[in-house]
């Protein structure tokens, strides 16, 4: 209950509405969420203060802030400031660090505070973070939705508490059920279709859609999207895990050798795409190769002309846009997208823009 009194003071504009809801609904969890709420607010201020510095120092600052917690940091937050929470299943890998940079840049551009909460693929952590964010009086929440069963409930509760919610990256199927403003992300299906169009343009007749995981719905949707737009035949095959690239390469080699009609490969991940390239080279086959996502290796191969294109999610936008949209919603009651998801992809990297993208990815924004 201590926290709810505090953020009554911090967020006067929305105070009356939010406080009446959360103090009635949150009374059961009051004692447990008090400490968490305080620490979240603390990390909010420290991240915001170090947002201009480099990414790694920001994250270390966030960790120290979260671990120390306390009331002192909370009192630094000034009335009228907007604090947006970005709660994702981020593992802080190369992909998510770009999302984070986008969000940080948006926060800096708009003069708002950002709290970055990586869940490291653990929905339970995300549930706690979402509840804590609501309890701490977030001005808005941007959340990824990798696991609908676990996360739809807490996010609905957030919307019910009049916290605007935008989903990002994953969750294009469930954001409407939550009552989120919109979804910012790449539809895997549309991305696959986009790749199919590219392969059509390249004149391919039969494409191997090479998957590096079995039963991953995102990867399956990429191949299904490809089937929708591609004019020729699509062979979808699991070719082995990224953990064993030798097996991956030899499996693709076998698939190519067994079917001379295959003249294109779409790898639905960057590692499997490179395996496909090596397999095709070993067999001396001319095939058009497309890939997904960016790695330095893959970008190099595109620049060298070995790989035709790669599908880029442009995840920087997945960090930047939700913060911008939340800001516009809170300050000006705007919504964008008309209830439909806002797609950040597919963007394509080809030989034409590879050099630029390599430069940008070194800066950490692609």
């Amino acid at each position, binding site marked *: 209950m201590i926290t709810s009194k505090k953020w009554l003071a911090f967020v006067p504009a929305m105070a009356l509405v939010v406080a009446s809801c959360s103090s009635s609904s949150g009374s059961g969890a009051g004692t447990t969420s008090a400490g968490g709420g305080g620490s979240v607010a603390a990390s909010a201020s420290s991240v915001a203060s170090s947002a201009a510095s480099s990414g*790694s120092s920001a994250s270390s600052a966030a960790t120290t802030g979260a671990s120390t917690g306390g009331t002192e940091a909370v009192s630094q937050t000034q009335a009228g400031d907007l604090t947006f929470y970005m709660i994702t299943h981020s*593992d*802080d*890998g*190369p992909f998510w660090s770009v999302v984070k940079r986008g969000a940080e840049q948006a926060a800096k551009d708009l003069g708002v505070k950002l709290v970055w909460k990586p869940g490291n693929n653990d929905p339970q952590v995300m549930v706690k973070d979402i509840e804590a964010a609501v309890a701490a009086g977030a001005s808005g929440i941007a959340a990824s939705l990798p696991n609908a069963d676990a996360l739809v409930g807490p996010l609905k509760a957030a919307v019910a508490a009049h916290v605007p919610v935008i989903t990002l990256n994953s969750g294009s199927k469930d954001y409407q059920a939550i009552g989120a403003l919109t979804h910012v992300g790449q539809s895997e299906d549309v991305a696959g279709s986009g790749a199919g169009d590219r392969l059509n343009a390249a004149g391919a007749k039969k494409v191997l859609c090479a998957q590096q995981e*079995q039963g991953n719905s995102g990867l399956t949707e990429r191949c299904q999207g490809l089937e929708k737009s591609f004019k020729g035949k699509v*062979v979808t*095959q*699991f*070719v*082995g*895990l*990224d*953990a*064993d*690239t*030798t*097996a991956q390469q*030899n*499996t*693709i*080699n*076998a*698939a190519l*050798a*067994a*079917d001379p009609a295959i003249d294109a490969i779409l790898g639905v991940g*960057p*590692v499997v795409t*490179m395996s496909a390239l*090596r397999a095709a080279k*070993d*067999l*001396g086959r001319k095939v058009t190769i497309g890939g997904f996502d960016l*790695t*330095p*290796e893959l970008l190099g191969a595109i620049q060298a002309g070995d790989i035709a294109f790669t599908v880029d999610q442009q995840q920087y936008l997945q960090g930047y846009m939700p913060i911008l949209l939340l800001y516009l919603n809170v300050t000006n009651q705007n919504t964008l997208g008309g209830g439909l998801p806002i797609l950040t992809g597919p963007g394509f990297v080809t030989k034409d823009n590879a050099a630029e993208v390599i430069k940008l990815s*070194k800066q*950490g924004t692609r």
Partner: protein
Amino acid sequence: MTLQGGGTEPLGSTPPDVDRREVWLEEPLTTIDKPSVQPAEPELMVANRGATASAVAPDGDERLAYRSVFQRLFMRPEVGAIIGAVGIWTFFWAVSGTFGTVGQTFGWLDTAATLGIMAVAVSMLMIGGEFDLSSGAMTGAMGMLIIYLVKATGALGGRGFPLELAIPLSLALALGIGYLNGWMVERTGQPSFIITLGTFFALIGLKLGLAKRFVGQIQIGRTDEASDFKYFRPFFAAEWERNKHEFAQRDFWYIALVAAGVLISILAVCELWFKRRAEPKATGLVQFLVSAAVGIAAGIGLNVTDGVGANLAIGVLIALCIVVGLHGWVSWRYEPIGERGSVALDSTMIRRTVLGLALVVLGGVVAVVMDSKSTNNFVFPFTTQGVRVMLASALGVAGLTLLAMVSQAALRVNAASKFIATSALALGIAVIAATIYIASKAPKFRAALFPFLLFLAVLIFTWGMLASRFAERRAVAARADRLGNRMLALGILSVLIGLAIRMLFITKAELLAGVPPAKTSVRLLWFALFTAAMMWVLARTRFGSWTFAVGGNKEAARQVGVPAARTKTKLFMLVAFAAWFVGILVAFRINSIQANAGDGQEFLYIIAAVVGGTLLTGGYGSAFGGAIGACIMSIPLIGISSARWNTDWRFLIIGTILLLAVVSNRYLRTKAGAVRR
């Protein structure tokens, strides 16, 4: 003899003499054969011990009784895996258009190489009674470490070391982690399963954390930024492009070496099986030499003639040469049987023989009658072709199984019955060969499977004939065993060299036919060398004996003076060494490594070891089995892709193989154990 590492000595090895034990152990141990040192699992240990304990038995100890060459063969841990590998290979060869090609063979061998080096090391560790769950993550970690060390310094991290520094540094670290694993297992007394699970997670975290901390990415490249990359590349990644190596006489050498190897192997089995006669019979040798000369001439003739009639005539001539020639050789060296007896099959045997032959013929009829037009698509169950193939195969296999059972049972009746029963089996195989020739339109069946099965039929017939006319040796003869084992090793080596020549070189005709490029690399050589080295260590060194000892019963081993803790720690370090080596191979192969490389592979290593006949409980197994197990894992991987099957079923197939392997290994072991007495 308890401490002698059983199943893993190479087939061509002589059983160790009793007095060698004293060389193996630091001090002579008298307690070793006493009943007080009983292993924890009597049944398994009996099998293990029996595998080598074929030395002279002065006191009539049944454990040291003489065992025939086939019994010895089937006692080996990896024999089930070898049969399985051949079966799976044949299956995918049959259902896929490209699986049997040289390019795809390189494909599955290459996949097996990195898996296999680890599986061999993990087999050793498992024989020693421990697990290492960190081995998979370790391969990736070592690859990343090497790349990080040699990577040019700059915005994206890297140390810029030369490889000559990075390689020993990373090796030292790998051995250190292996040592740590062993030390912790020994010190805490906790199961290695738990300890190495901890190391596994620690390594995964380290890989990810350090990569992002120092390089800012989870993928780290590139190996070729090392200043001395080009000097090291040949050792770890030299490639061989088959299509660039033409060898006009390739087929001559291939056929000559394989034929000679098979012949020497057969003669070796004769040497191991039959009893020498006091005075050699010179006419037999003449008979052998003349038949061999005629056979070789006929073989050359096969190359020049054309047309079905001539080929058939020459085929019959070669078959005759095999029968007559082998008879000559055996009658030259070995003692004939005095009393052959008259055919005395009981009613069950006769019924089974008739039924077996009937089933084989019925299978042939099904195959011919149910002929379907769609020759391409006989892959899976629901087409007419699929039903036809499955029905015919099931009938054929059932028939052959019955015939084989009868010929086994007839062994115990008398020589003449055995001859009849074995001939029936040969006849069954010949019928199947004929069926394939008549019913199949696929050229590869007619050109490869048909002559192979005919050859097999002739061989089985000849063997039945010889075994019913000449006396089986029923006692140990050290010199004959040594000679036989060496001949067998030579024969197998000759076949392997012949196959390697066939694989590595291309002929003008193939080039003109547009054979797709096939590429292999030095990795295969490392795989073979590492496997051979570990087989040698297990079979021929004190450390190998200790490995079996600590895995079988650690306390007993300790009591007789085996340094158990040190042995286990060394085994952990061996696995770490293998992981380091595989890490280098991968780093040189793909030039960059992602943080999750190798994660989860440790279970494949363990599966490969188990499929290869190594026991989860320790104390029994073989290094060679691990290598074969790796092949069994990789063949379906490439095979399913080659056969263009739906890959959703992949894990079902791998799981089934694992179950079959474990069950059949156990069956073979108990069977061989029972036959022994």
